């Protein structure tokens, strides 16, 4: 049942900053391995769309927001510590 759920992610990045680029890479890798074909990723550049960052309360970049399934979760950083990230996103135990 859980396998069918669609994961919606939004990743806030700061232009082409190194840590933002790393986050994009890490997120893509994670989704490919754990959530093939059942994820969407929206990338928001805070430099281009600061109003949105303000509205969403994003002050640190990169920030990953898991919008669905609930509950909403936020992770700041490059998402490099995979195990912690998986735990937080509720993906622990899923086969890679």
């Amino acid at each position, binding site marked *: 049942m859980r396998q069918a759920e669609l994961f919606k992610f939004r990743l*806030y990045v*700061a*232009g082409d*900053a190194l*840590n*933002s680029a*790393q*986050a994009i890479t*890490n997120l893509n890798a994670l989704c490919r391995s754990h959530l093939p074909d059942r994820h969407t990723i929206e990338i928001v550049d*805070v*430099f281009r769309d*600061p*109003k949105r*960052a*303000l509205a969403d*309360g*994003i*002050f*640190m*970049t*990169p*920030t990953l927001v898991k919008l669905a399934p609930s509950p909403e*979760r*936020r*992770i*700041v*950083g*490059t*998402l*490099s*510590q995979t195990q*912690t*990230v998986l735990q*937080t996103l509720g993906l622990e135990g899923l086969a890679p």
Partner: protein
Amino acid sequence: MKSVRPPIVHMPAKAPTGIAGFDEITGGGLPQGRTTLLIGGPGSGKTIFALQFLVHGAQECKEPGIFVAFEESAERILANAASFGWKLAELRRKKLFFLDARPMPDLLQAGDFDLSGMLAVLEAQTKEMGARRIVFDALNILLALLPDEAAKRREIYRLHDWLLARRLTGLITLQAGGDETGAISPQPFGFMQFMVDCAVILNHSVVQGVSQRNLRVQKYRGSSFDEDESPFLIGKNGLEVAVARTPGRMNTKVSNERISSGVERLDTMLGGGYYRGASVLITGSPGTAKTTLSGAFAEAACRRGERTLFVSFDSEYAEVIRNLDSVGIRLDRYIKNGCLRMIPARTITGSAELYLGRIKTLATEHRARCLVIDPVSTWSKSRNDLTARSVAERLIDWSKAVGITLVCTRLLDEMLSHTEGSSPLNISSPHLSSLHLSTLADTWIHLSYLVQAGERNRGLSIIKSRGTAHSNQVRELILSDTGVTLADTYTAGGEVLMGTLRWEKERAERVATEVAEGAGKLKRIRLDAEEAELEVRLKSLQVELVAKQLEKALLVRTTQSHEGKLTRERAQMKELRGADAAKPGRKKSP
């Protein structure tokens, strides 16, 4: 790091904070377009300082501001600041923006991150509203999220560079440890103090159970500033920093007008009374009638119709009125007509600073022209002596600046042991200078007990009175149900006589005068009698003289008539004899 700072101009422009006293200390405010660090422990007033800086900018300087809150929500900050009357709700629409940047408690960190997001948001907001001032409140909370020292430094520099590049006047507040020193741990904030252009330290300490707030400017690049710690208080309109002496305030109007001290003979001793706007210090041991003397002044002021504020520290004001009533000083009617306002100062609690602020406010509210503080020594009691002293200085400065005539009393209980001794009027006690008022006051009246011949009498002397010729005599102060007066004093053998001794001396003089008067009278009567006797004798002699003269005149007349008669008789006889003396022939014939 220095390379990123813009070149220092000769006198950096200042962004006024609107905080009374702080702009004086710094010569105009915070450095414009630079970053200032505000460091303080919990509850030291950092947030209020920061908010006031923004409010003043938005209201008075046409400099909109952004408040970035890391610690409290915007709503809580607004609620806390609601009592200051800053019209925050109105400002918030256009000129003041609150950014709630509190990190979420469930925030998870996974790898490296930075503050670009926040700066991007601020960048957009700054441009939109034309913000010139920005506050980062409790930046340390954000920094705590960063994993290591290097990251913290990197982000601080990022922030600092961003502020400088946009020429925003930045104020970063940091929470320091709870210790009173105001020192912060060397890492990670230590280097921030070197980085910024201005650093201000707030500290909130408790000295002998009394809360005391102090502010100190630690550094200010390119500007002179007052380096000392200055007390401040959080008053009705925000922060008020106490400035010991500002040159601007020294140009006060000096009045030549004299006003009555309420005791007629004291006015005479002072050469006409106190000067208007002068500060008068009345010192003395307990019970030397300090309150009475200040009450007499208050009554005289009210009689002239001058609004007066009477701050009573020791007793409830009803007691003061009753006690003064017993010596003929009636204050209740002036309280009823609103001329006199009495403040029991026990209702004010807190630091000396708070007292000063409160008294200033009350005096201004009452539009007082005369101010009595009884006794001012309560300030120093159980409080930081150093602070109480500068408070007293500022009290005098302030009252002079606004032209209020100030009378304050000061208890000299420390002197009691001295006054009991052999030289009761010796006032060279070292404790006397502890409040420092004595040198600042224009007129210093000292009340003392004089113990002599088993009696204790009140003595009054004017120790100094600037700009007036004044009596150097020690006078006896007499309280009766009809009022306060000063008696003449007698000196005998180098000692001033008072009380019974004075009375005895007076009586002895009175008796001596009476005796002298009696003797004079007696002598006069005697002389009168002699005079009368002589006059009588003179009269009888005059009468005798007249009689003698008459007798003499009579005698002359009698003699004349007798001689006439003889002549006539001789002629008659010749005729009878028929002899003719002219016929010589008749003689030859016989």
